[in-house]
């Protein structure tokens, strides 16, 4: 994740999407009990914030 994102172009569509081509059967077959149990949490944990300027000596 970037901390300084670029500004969108004026004529850029603000909404992005993708159509998935996989069949429901294919996806359901993929998610075995084992794969579900081993899936990792996807999380965003930012670094612990340092002291703010006002808190510094």
């Amino acid at each position, binding site marked *: 994740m970037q901390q300084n994102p670029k500004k969108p172009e004026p004529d850029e569509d603000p909404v*992005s999407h993708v159509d*998935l081509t996989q069949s429901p059967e294919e996806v359901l077959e993929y998610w075995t009990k084992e794969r579900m*149990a081993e899936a990792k949490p996807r999380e965003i944990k930012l670094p612990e914030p340092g002291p703010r300027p006002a808190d510094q000596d």
Partner: protein
Amino acid sequence: MTRTRSLASGLLTFSAATVLALTSAGGASAAPAPSGGNADPSVASVTVNAAGAADYWTPERMQSAVPGDTLAGKALERGNRSSPAVVEKGKPSSTKGTKGKPTIAQSEDPVSHIGKVFFTMGGANYVCSGNAVTSANGSTVATAGHCVNEGPGAYATNFVFVPAYDNGAAPYGKWTAKALYAPTQWVSSGDMTYDTGFAVVNPDSNGDLLTDVVGGSGTAFNQARGLTYTSYGYPQAAPFNGTSLWSCTGTASADPNNPQFGTQGIPCDMTGGSSGGPWFIGTDSDGVQNSINSYGYKGSAVMYGPYWGRVIQDTFTRAAKS
């Protein structure tokens, strides 16, 4: 009879099963034996290697572990029971119980429209949380942008929503996605301001639509800041385990560390796995959804969510009409 069996079961679950498992793993240093010297000859002990035990318990081994009751039953069959006449009675004694570290998050019963989402991204399998929302297509799930797209980068594949997930059970089935939506500014540059995504799912095998089966939450956009919210999710990282639903309630305030995100935070210690879980205005899951679990800071018990303004509203509208 029942009482005797329960007591035996409890003791053997802890002692025999543990020793057997650790011995097999090479984690125990020796078979249990009476301690030497001045130790009480009626007490046996064994030294175990904690690291070995942790390595030993793979998800597969935990799943195939035999219930301790089986071992208790075998012990009773062997008939190795002491006569009441030889059981010595000592002085009455007791010890105080202890509680684990309390969490801010509260345990919840499953809610039909809230669930877990599973997906593949960059070759790895991930889990987040999500919520079915009322929509024109009856098939829209709200979650985090980082649970549908790398931000910036590629979209997820193998995306499936499991409403009311409860310890491996999927009471309303698994709903596969046919399209994923996110704000362009999330997809092109991972702008935390827009960390929200929507999945449009296929009908189930009966042809029924998602919200006709599990219901759906209303949505709200462009609301006042500083509202009271209740967020839900399936935190998986310790001290949670991802098996059940949890919630946090609090009044939102701006992120003092990165005010440019425009996000708001509530007191909450839910961990990874809760990402994408819904924020409802008010104090329960009947409220309208107005954000999602997005991010936190290391060493801080605050969960932040994006402000649902016009861009996220447009993203929802496009997904809901597709």
